[in-house]
């Protein structure tokens, strides 16, 4: 029963190797989808290319369903899966800053590495920026620490907060996503751009 490494069905020494393999899959799919192009990524916010919406949500939903079905079949123990803890204020403010970074820089860390792999110089500069940004945070940490730790709720799940099951939650997200996909496709028809 999964997850295999935490349950010690596979030795922990394999974990880094597994990470590498997963990374290859991740990078390959991202690049195939076109996430190595900042213009495609930014297109999400101007309507001419909603690839981000489609890939992102389809990906999250597929994994969400996968986890729920695996749990149903007894193939995975969901209580051992990492659920990222909620620190509400830093999540919101951090998200806002990242959103600004996204529209200004046209990348996020994962896609920038992917783009740098195919030779995009703007992606490499973006990565350089990330390094600086992290450095600034690290140096300024003593000032930020209290805010950073505020509003801690632990690893709470939306389904628990809403009092519904994981399956119902997944279904709701799917419905929302299908609606957004439809809107996205309409937007692309309205504001077309040639391929780049």
């Amino acid at each position, binding site marked *: *029963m999964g*997850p295999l*490494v*935490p349950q010690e069905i596979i030795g922990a020494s394999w974990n880094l190797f597994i990470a590498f393999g997963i990374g290859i899959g991740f990078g390959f799919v991202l690049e195939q989808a076109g996430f190595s192009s900042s213009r495609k990524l930014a297109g999400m916010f101007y309507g001419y290319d909603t690839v981000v919406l489609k890939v992102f949500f*389809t990906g999250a*939903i*597929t994994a969400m*369903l996968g986890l*729920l*079905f695996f*749990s*149903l*079949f*007894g193939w995975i*123990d969901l209580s*051992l*899966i*990492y659920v*990222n803890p909620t620190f509400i204020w830093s999540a919101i403010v951090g998200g806002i800053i990242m959103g600004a970074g996204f529209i200004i820089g046209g990348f996020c860390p994962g896609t920038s590495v992917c783009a740098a792999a195919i030779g995009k110089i703007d992606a490499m500069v973006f990565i350089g920026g990330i390094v600086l940004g992290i450095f600034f945070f690290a140096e300024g940490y003593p000032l930020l620490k209290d805010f950073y730790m505020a509003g801690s709720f632990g690893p709470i799940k939306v389904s628990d907060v809403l009092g519904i*099951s*994981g*399956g*119902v939650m*997944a*279904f709701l997200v*799917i*419905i929302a*996503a*299908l609606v957004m*996909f439809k809107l996205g496709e309409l937007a692309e028809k309205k504001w077309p751009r040639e391929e780049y």
Partner: protein
Amino acid sequence: MSIRNLIFIGLFLLGMVIAMVPENTTKPYKLTAEDMLIEVQGAAEMVDADEVAHWIISKDPSLQLIDVRSPDEYQTYHLDGAINIPLSVILKDEYLDYLDQGIKMNVLYSNGTMNSHQSWMILRQLGFENNYVLQGGLNYWFDTIMNPQAPSVYSPNEEFAKYDFRKAASGALGGGGVVAMSAPAKTKADKPKVIRKKKKKAPAGGC
């Protein structure tokens, strides 16, 4: 049909299924039947009354007595320091921290050995360590520790040593009046080792 439509329909249908099917909340057994057979035949989980009496008297901090009888029976009488986790609720999440841990020795007891051993079987199959069964339960406890019978004159010396110990123990434990002696004889029992539970490392994640 285009890939896109196929995926849309697929996601929608799978979503409906997963929303309607009840969640799998069964707790899986971690030990196979063969493993359990070996463990049961080895009977390493049994601890006898003398050992437990000794641990209670020496105030051993790693001992945790667990009474698996009903709450009423627990209220009427329970061993000093015992907590009550009735067999009927043993699978509930609220007791998980007591039953699945690596710090204390849990000694399960009931009136006889049956219910406590049944509890042990379930806990062991779930993979929990550090749970033991009080041999003979409270019935045996009262007969031997609380009201020890003097051995006949033909008994070997160790029977007398046990009797002396039990007399002193019952005095310390509030049993039927006997002359309290000084420190009870040390029992040879090697205390079972508390198996430190490898904190199942919930994996780190995020960034």
